């Protein structure tokens, strides 16, 4: 029982504290790739601490929804942290949910963030919400089909079950269906977490930003929490990607040593993925908003391919 | 076998009736038609008396008398009163009687075909005349349908009635008394009502042409 508790705490700490570091690593890698020295990977912690110190400025037109949204965002991310198998295949809340619950928890966050965007009553908030919700809607079918591909292969959609099933039979991981599902899921991650081809996290240019437009009105501690939640979302998505599709090294029992090994293996995988993300982002420019559906349609086609390949090669 | 006198007499009278009907179709002007109608009614009365004599049906004498009284005298008088006001209609040029005679011919053939079930099954001596009288009825209907004015309609209807009366005589040697009386009463009332209606139409439209009566559509 102690192991379970320890694993839960470890997962919370990893997600809570590790998320800004992941963002930092990606930023520094991107800078290095374009030949700049770039800020140190610990820079996001400094930003958060600065924001926490600042004064909260709240617009008169907003309502309680604007005030509650940061808390809801953070809460959903923390609960998701206990569902995704980071350092142990069966995390504390593993029994309570599966991939579909995870996706809907992220949707709760998107729902309230969009409402907060609208609440301020400015044109940018509305535009950001409208586009964010459009992208989220178009990403849904891909997630569902990718999950369907996994469910066919693993016979269950409980995350722990999938991890154990795939790690037990390595050939599964190399099946074409599996790789196609990974590619589809990767594109969805880019769309959901607002990374480059869909939305440029680094800019404040009104016409191009989707995620940033919604949080334009936030300031001080609220902005800190929102940024923190966004970082956690990226962390969770990447670790989900890593552990579902390449689950080796995810321990199944909760001993102190095994947990440490699990954490290190997770850190390694995330760094590799962060590198891949950085390379992708520097290589690609931002897509015009009305080309994003074609990208998502492509990912949907990949997911459909993975499902049909699962059929044929069964 | 020598045909019984009743067969030859009824066939001959029925034939004459049909000829009178054809004459009515051929004659276009009203006065001539009215006179031919009287002839037709008299022929039917004669038919009734022959059946009364040979068929030993005493009540048919009374029926024949009523036919003469009603259809040969009273109704033509009313028709005359009705037609009094209208200006004599010139015979429309180019409206040859040939076309209608052709149609009447086909109606006679149709009458024979329709009455086949009756003529094949019946063994009555007067069976020969049935298709002829039925043809008279159909031609009467044809005159009603092609009537250009109200009088044409009424005359056609009366000829149609005559044809049916003849058919009834030949097929059943006369209907039961109360029904026969009812039919004559109805016929008289129809003509009287028609007279009232025609007067009102003439007062309303100051003409009894049918194309004035086309306002109610849809």
């Amino acid at each position, binding site marked *: 029982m102690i192991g379970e508790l320890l694993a839960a705490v470890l997962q919370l700490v990893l997600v809570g504290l590790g998320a800004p570091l992941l963002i930092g690593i990606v930023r520094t890698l991107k800078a290095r790739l374009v030949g700049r020295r770039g800020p140190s990977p610990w820079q996001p912690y400094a930003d958060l601490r600065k924001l926490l110190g600042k004064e909260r400025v709240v617009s008169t037109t907003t309502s309680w929804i604007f005030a509650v949204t940061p808390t809801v965002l953070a809460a959903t991310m923390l609960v998701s942290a206990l569902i995704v198998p980071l350092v142990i295949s069966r995390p504390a809340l593993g029994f309570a949910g599966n991939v579909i619950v995870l996706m809907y928890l992220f949707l709760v966050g998107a729902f309230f963030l969009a409402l907060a965007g609208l609440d301020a009553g400015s044109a940018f908030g509305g535009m950001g919400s409208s586009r964010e919700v459009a992208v989220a809607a178009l990403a849904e079918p891909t997630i569902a089909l990718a999950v369907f591909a996994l469910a066919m292969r693993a016979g269950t959609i409980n995350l722990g079950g999938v991890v154990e099933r795939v790690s037990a039979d390595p050939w599964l991981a190399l099946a074409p269906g599996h790789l196609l599902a990974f590619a589809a899921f990767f594109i969805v991650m880019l769309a959901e977490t607002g990374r480059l081809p869909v939305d440029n996290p680094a800019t404040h240019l009104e016409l191009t930003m989707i995620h940033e437009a919604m949080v334009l009105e936030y300031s001080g501690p609220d902005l800190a929490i929102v940024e923190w939640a966004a970082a956690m979302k990226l962390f969770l998505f990447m670790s989900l990607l890593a552990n579902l599709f390449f689950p080796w090294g995810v321990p199944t029992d909760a001993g102190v040593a095994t947990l440490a090994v699990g954490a290190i293996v997770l850190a390694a995988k995330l760094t590799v993925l962060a590198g891949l993300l950085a390379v992708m982002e520097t290589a690609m420019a931002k897509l015009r908003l009305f080309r994003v559906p074609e990208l998502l349609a492509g990912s949907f086609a990949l997911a459909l391919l993975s499902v049909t390949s699962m059929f044929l090669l069964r | 076998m020598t045909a019984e006198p009743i067969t030859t007499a009824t066939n001959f009278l029925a034939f004459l009736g049909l000829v009178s009907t054809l004459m009515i179709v051929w004659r276009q002007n009203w006065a001539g038609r009215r006179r031919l109608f009287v002839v037709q009614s008299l022929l039917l009365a004669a038919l009734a008396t022959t059946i009364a004599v040979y068929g030993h049906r005493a009540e048919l004498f009374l029926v024949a008398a009523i036919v003469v009284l009603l259809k040969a005298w009273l109704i033509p008088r009313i028709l005359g009163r009705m037609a009094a006001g209208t200006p004599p209609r010139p015979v429309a040029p180019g409206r040859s009687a040939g076309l209608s005679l052709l149609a009447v011919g086909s109606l006679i053939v149709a009458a024979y075909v329709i009455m086949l079930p*009756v003529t094949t099954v019946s063994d009555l001596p007067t069976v020969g005349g049935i298709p002829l009288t039925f043809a008279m009825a159909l031609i009467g209907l044809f005159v009603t349908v092609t009537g250009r004015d109200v009088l044409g309609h009424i005359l056609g209807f009366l000829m149609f009635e005559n044809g049916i009366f003849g058919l009834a005589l030949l097929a059943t040697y006369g209907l039961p008394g*109360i029904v026969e009386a009812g039919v004559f009463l*109805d016929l008289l009332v129809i003509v009287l009502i028609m007279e009232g209606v025609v007067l009102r*139409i003439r007062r*309303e439209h100051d003409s009894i042409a049918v194309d004035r009566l086309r306002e*109610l559509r849809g």
Partner: protein
Amino acid sequence: MSLVVVLATPLVGAILLVVARGIAARVLHLLATVLTAAAAGAVAVQVSHAGSIVALGGLFRADGLSAWMIGLIALVSLLAAIEAPYTVPSAAVGRFRPLFHLFVFTMLLAVATDDVGLMWVAIEGTTLASVFLVNLERSRASLEAAYKYLLICSVGVAIAFIGTVLVYFADIHQFGHEAHALRWTTLVRLAPGLPPRVVELAFVFLLVGYGTKAGLAPMHTWLPDAHSEAPAPVSALMSGVLLSVGVYALVRFKTVVDLSGGPEFTQRLLLALGLTSIATAAVFLWAPTNYKRMLAYSSIEHIGVVCLGLGFGGLAGVGGAVLHVANHALAKSALFVLSGRIRAAYGSAEISAVTGLLGTMPVTGGLFLLAMLAIMGLPPFGLFVSEVLIFSAGFQSGHGIIAATGLLLLVGAFAGLLRNAHRMLYGTPAPAIVDVPGLRSAVPTGLALLLLTLTGVAWPPGLAAALDHIARLLGQ
């Protein structure tokens, strides 16, 4: 005895009303209809006990079907008589009353007599009695309608006379000069022996002849003109029961023909004519200009449904058809009475002239809406149940396709009727219209709708048994 009273009262009433004037006429008018209704009730009671009653040595005979029709005619004429003072212009009421009762007499005679020939005379009599009723208002249009009505119906009924003569010929040819050869009872008794070919030929003439009186398409052309130009009580009587008398005559002869040559012959004809009638009505219901013509076409539609019921046959089919005749009579007479009031208030029979009826005339409008729902065949009124009965017979007798087509056409008619009802009932109410004062005037139509709800939702105990008895009577 009560049969003679039922027939004598309207005749005597008509004769007296020719001379009566003023308050005496008004009292006599109402008294005559009430007495007829009472006598009809007596006849119905006697028939329900004794099966059938006879008068004048068998010339008059009332069995189940006749009693049903006599009751219906009495009821509808009561409704029309009560309504008459409101809508018939006072100048014409002197001519209206005697003809009205004569009209009722001829209809009662047609259904009460056993002699087929006398029935023909009576039906011809109904036409003659109602010609001047149609032309009561002496307008140019009603004159034209009356003329066409007289001409077409006389030609039609004359064709029916050929049929009657042929039936008589078949009877004599087979059994010689029977005493009462033209009596329906003898015809039914001798029917199996009659030569089928002749009887079937006779039925074609009878169908065309009496079909004209019943308003079956394509012989229906006089009906919209006559019913829309006649004053409301007369068109209520004509649409409600005169058409049913035409159907009554057809049913009588159908029984004889079925016994002699088997039911297929009459079924084919009745189903064909039934479908054509519903189709023609549905087309003309789509965009009528005048709401009285709309009601006339809806009568054609419902008579077509009755014809389908007779064509399908079986206890449900014929029983349903008989019930449908009663339901339709009640609903249509109520509708015509109400349309009379609407025409009196709005001054025009055009649908476009009447808007916001529910707003300006709440009582009449409300009743009009309910009656329209009834005529469209919606529960809780009886027409829904009788239509379901008829179509259940349709499917049971294997005529699935025809039943389905009928149902489809009914939807078309429903759409048309509802469209016009909407144009009249809703919209901005016309300001200067006042409703007929007092609720008393709404009592007769309200009563009719109440009866309809009875047959629609809660059948009185005897009804099912009566319908089965009548169906069996007609050889099902």
